[in-house]
């Protein structure tokens, strides 16, 4: 089992990896916002933004091809959400139909927005892949906690990260036990057995949760977890912030110059 998919490039040494998680989270957000607020069709600005993300990926020593492959995952989602855009002219709300292709009525403006959303989503997912491949999950949680993300969310994510691997192992063991008895999970007639397995897994996690709670209680948990922050903003964070902020500002204000 590949437990380390999430963490494949987390241990590389680069300027980007050394940045404080807060810096990375904030700049990823800023980048996504800049992308989202780009006027459709502003090719120059989109190109500049692509250049920014690609140069940061190269700085982080993460293979471009890896980021590209992983970013493909976003396309089905965008397709489903944006698939009807070409059939309406959303921008002016008039539903004015301008094109006829293979007997379908398409709107030029809708198509235009569709392509734009596709590119914007792609840029945004690349920023997220970059963030998650340069920041280990525990550090990301610490950063989010310091950025005042509600504590309960942080704890849910933390437990999920800790136990998802345990759960995957359990599921694999169950699967192996099933295979040993020549049972095919592809057979629809046996859906009842699959349902039982899922139920079993659920009960296992429930019981594990109970024991984890006992462990927490025996270590002084009283309903409120206290955490420790061990992060410090370093010089490299300030340099990175100034540079990227300048670049993003320049890109944003380009058209006014």
């Amino acid at each position, binding site marked *: 089992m590949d*437990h380390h998919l999430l*963490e494949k490039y987390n241990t590389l040494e680069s300027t980007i990896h050394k940045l404080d998680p807060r810096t990375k989270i904030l700049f990823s957000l800023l980048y996504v916002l800049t992308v989202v607020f780009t006027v459709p069709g502003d090719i120059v600005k989109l190109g500049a933004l692509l250049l920014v993300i690609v140069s940061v990926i190269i700085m982080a020593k993460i293979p471009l091809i890896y980021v590209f492959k992983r970013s493909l995952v976003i396309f089905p989602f965008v397709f489903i959400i944006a698939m009807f855009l070409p059939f309406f002219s959303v921008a002016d709300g008039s539903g004015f139909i301008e094109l006829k292709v293979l007997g379908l009525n398409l709107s030029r403006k809708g198509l235009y927005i569709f392509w734009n959303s596709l590119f914007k989503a792609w840029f945004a997912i690349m920023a997220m892949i970059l963030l998650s491949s340069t920041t*280990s*999950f*525990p550090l990301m*949680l610490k950063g989010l906690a310091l950025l005042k993300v509600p504590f309960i969310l942080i704890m849910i994510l*933390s*437990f999920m*990260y*800790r*136990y998802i*691997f*345990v759960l995957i192992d359990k599921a694999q063991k169950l699967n192996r036990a099933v295979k040993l008895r020549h049972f095919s999970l592809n057979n629809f007639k046996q859906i009842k057995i699959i349902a039982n397995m899922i139920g079993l897994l659920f009960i296992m996690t429930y019981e*594990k949760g109970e*024991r*984890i709670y*006992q*462990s*927490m*209680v*025996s*270590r*002084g*948990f*009283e309903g409120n*977890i*206290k*955490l*420790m922050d061990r992060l410090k903003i370093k010089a490299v964070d300030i340099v990175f912030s100034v540079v990227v902020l300048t670049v993003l500002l320049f890109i944003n204000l380009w058209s006014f110059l």
Partner: protein
Amino acid sequence: MEFPLNDAIEIEKLTYSYPDGRVALDNVSFNVSRGETVGIIGSNGAGKTTLLLHLPGILQGSGNLKIAGYEMNSKNLKNIRKAVGLVFQEPDDQLFMPTVFDDIAFAPLQFGREPEEIHKIVHEVLRKVGLSGFEERLAHHLSFGEKKRVAIAVALAMNPEILVFDEPTSNLDPHARKELIVLIKGLNNTKVIAGHDMEMIKETCTKVIVVNKGKVAAEGTPAEIFSNKVLLETNMLI
């Protein structure tokens, strides 16, 4: 560290039933002196784990318990939990934070220790269990033996008077088992060790308590208990 002069653990007529009414512990009484290592042996389902969970007050049956000189009641619960370090059988149940550092720091943080002190504690307990430098390791990347050691480090973090182990050697390979026994023997806290690894109990304990169906069936020195074949057989231990 100063301990009160009485016994580390005093249990008198402890009775506990599961929510479904099944009796798990029936009139259990015994004492553990300070510095003593006590083994609790019994077959599967004899009530060992249930008994251990009473020591830090996670389960609360009827009867009188005095742990580290504190009467078991809600007022003393915090002090009792500071005084008892519990090592679970399954380290995945005990290590619930993403990194080793956060796991060990959990208890000291909840009990309000200062950050500088916590760094020292983490460093010190990791050295004690022979895992220096493991602070930033991720829990799911550790081997089973390492997880067991981290679990002991976690229990040591509050410098507890009493250490409680639930089947410490289960699932370990012979080498890791031997090393763990050496580690346990090297800790000079009062220890309560439950298990059915008889060799390990023989090697580490100064007193052995046999439990069967929630009752104390016998109590004595390891030599007395392990030479009594009839006793072991009636309690399903051989």
